[in-house]
């Protein structure tokens, strides 16, 4: 297939070219999902209004809002068309003005398919097309599941795909086992998700009540008195119950999000599917996956569990969309990483002892400084607290040093750092777009340097912290000799190996 990147405005074709592709509409049931959601919310509000104030203006407003919502959804559906051409995907919205989103097909980097409960009941799915910084984004909300699958295949395939052909073979790279859902409490994020959910529900109820005039100063004050008046045993019991509920809640939330988490590979893309209620699938174009990232925290390390993410060129929201495994035994995670980019280079080379001193000093210095100031101005308690933090910072610094490491083989290299959140990136050699060597005055005195590998994927740069200065340069020179060697100082052999 030839790709022409001319600046022709969308819709205009050269004479004799293939006829413009057929315009398609979204699935007719689409508006049902949106309308139902609003219906429920408005019915709730309307019913509450009815209970409180009878047939008040609020209730009529609700009805009017409902009618507007329905009209809005129907017109959105009726005025929206999309077409998949040979070079571009075009999304047209023609209500008052006409907007055309045109996404060049050779820029498409990922296709997400997600379906909320409502969509799944109706056999629909939302398709999100991501084309990076210079391609833009488009959303098809919603099409039938078959159409979603077809779009994903067509948009991520390099060669034209025959829609009628049998779906190509797929290889399963990773699949969550049920047992692994029990790892959820190890990761802090899921531990606190129930609180966040409870907070947002409470906030929503409060706002709703406030809007309907149910929240008065009296009631709030009475509630406050009631809570304050509870016997302390009840408060303790509630706290204990909450503590017990946290891990259980985290397992439930984790399961909802990551149910049947599966990563498959088919015709040049990686597809990660997950979710119990809302089923989400993210497709990443294989050749844009330039590396992987293995992360864990101290708890996960103790349990030998790791998370896996992909480093993808030009992928927005990479933390969520690049996820390849939310939690799995380390060996399995390493096997998945190997299946995606190739074996992880190893063993890791530790960094010089001077780096240990630096890690400890950097961990302990902030609380020490605050503590010293606090002691100087006579804030005894703060000073003691800072002293405790300083003592705790020493093992943290030691562990940060222990986790530092780097290694490379003929095809890829790996850098590891961090303690509370340890990350090891494995990057394809070809993904490097530059090197940055940093040296502070203190690093210079002890012969250390930080090497940043600039990578056109993921976060854009990954640091090898506090490497021995000659090692940092040698590491870069080993990976891209042509770029670095012309700038090396000629080292006399005898002097260079001295030590």
């Amino acid at each position, binding site marked *: 297939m030839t790709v022409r990147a001319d600046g022709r405005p969308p819709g205009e074709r050269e004479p004799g070219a293939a006829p413009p592709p057929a315009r398609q509409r979204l699935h007719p049931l689409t508006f049902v999902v949106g309308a139902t959601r609003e219906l429920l919310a408005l019915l709730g509000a309307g019913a509450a209004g009815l209970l409180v104030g009878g047939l008040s203006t609020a209730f009529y407003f609700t009805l009017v809002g409902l009618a507007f919502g329905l009209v809005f959804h129907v017109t959105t559906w009726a005025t929206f068309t999309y077409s998949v051409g040979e070079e571009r995907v075009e999304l047209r919205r023609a209500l008052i003005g006409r907007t055309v989103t045109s996404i060049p097909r050779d820029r498409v980097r990922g296709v997400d398919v997600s379906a909320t409960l409502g969509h799944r009941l109706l056999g629909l799915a939302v398709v999100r097309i991501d084309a990076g910084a210079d391609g833009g984004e488009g959303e098809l909300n919603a099409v039938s599941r078959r159409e979603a699958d077809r779009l994903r295949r067509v948009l991520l395939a390099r060669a034209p795909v025959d829609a009628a052909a049998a779906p190509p073979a797929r290889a399963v790279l990773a699949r969550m086992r049920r047992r692994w859902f029990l790892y959820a409490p190890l990761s802090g994020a899921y531990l606190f998700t129930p609180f966040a959910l409870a907070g947002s529900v409470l906030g929503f109820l409060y706002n709703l009540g406030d809007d309907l005039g149910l929240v008065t100063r009296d009631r709030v004050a009475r509630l406050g008195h009631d809570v304050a008046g509870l016997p302390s045993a009840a408060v303790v019991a509630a706290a204990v119950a909450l503590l017990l509920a946290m891990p259980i809640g985290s397992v439930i939330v984790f399961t909802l999000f990551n149910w049947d988490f599966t990563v498959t590979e088919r015709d040049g893309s990686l597809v990660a599917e997950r979710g119990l209620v809302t089923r989400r699938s993210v497709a990443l174009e294989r050749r844009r996956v330039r590396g992987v990232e293995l992360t864990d925290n101290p708890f996960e390390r103790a349990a030998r569990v790791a998370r896996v993410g992909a480093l993808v060129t030009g992928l927005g929201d990479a933390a969520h969309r690049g996820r390849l495994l939310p939690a799995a035994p380390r060996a399995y995670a390493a096997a998945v990483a190997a299946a995606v980019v190739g074996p992880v280079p190893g063993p890791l080379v530790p960094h010089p002892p001077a780096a240990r001193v630096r890690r400890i000093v950097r961990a302990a210095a902030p609380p020490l400084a605050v503590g010293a100031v606090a002691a100087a101005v006579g804030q005894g308690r703060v000073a003691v607290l800072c002293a405790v933090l300083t003592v705790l910072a020493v093992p943290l610094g030691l562990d940060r040093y222990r986790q530092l490491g780097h*290694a490379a083989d003929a095809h890829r290299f790996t850098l590891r750092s961090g303690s509370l959140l340890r990350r090891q990136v494995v990057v394809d050699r070809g993904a490097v777009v530059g090197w940055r060597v940093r040296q502070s005055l203190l690093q210079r005195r002890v012969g250390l340097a930080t090497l940043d590998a*600039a990578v*056109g994927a993921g976060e854009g740069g990954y640091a090898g912290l506090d490497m*021995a200065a000659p090692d940092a340069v040698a590491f870069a020179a080993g990976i891209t000799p042509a770029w670095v060697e012309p700038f090396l100082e000629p*080292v006399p052999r005898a002097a260079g190996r001295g030590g």
Partner: protein
Amino acid sequence: MTAVRGAPAGDGGDARPAARLRAPAHRVSRRAIAHWAIEYLLVFGPAFGLALGVAAWAGSAGWTGAPGAVAAHAGWLPVAVGAAGVLAVGVAPVWRYRVHRWEVSADVVYTRTGWFDREWLLVPVGRIQTVDAGQGWLERLLGLATVEINTASHTGSSELTGLPVGVATRLAEDLARRAHDLRDDAT
């Protein structure tokens, strides 16, 4: 040079001797010293005035307790800011001039920047996405320009400050043309 523990392992097989980057070939313009000095002056001048004001205000506020203990030493604040300012205006620009160097080889842009902390940056021309040459008002007065080199990664993007205008514009055009010719698909 510091001792090296063994050979850097895993660099593709062959062990290399201890490696050091040499300095890039070209210095920036001498007028860059004036540019940096004026820039620092514009920051530290107002900061010094502010520090004087804060010290006067804190000294007359008559607080007690911990704030009072801090306020008693407020007189040191303008001294500290002033000392940092003198260092920044008098020493840093010359130091930076000695460190800042650049070089463009056949396929790599190599720069060294910083003064207290240093940075060596290697950006292959083939991975450059955009090249901009720009001038701030101060640079215009001094006949200087800055060349900004962007790659797909923020970490791999660099800025060459303090170049004479003519050099900067020629360099930017040259780099943009070669980047276009050499462009490979690492992004």
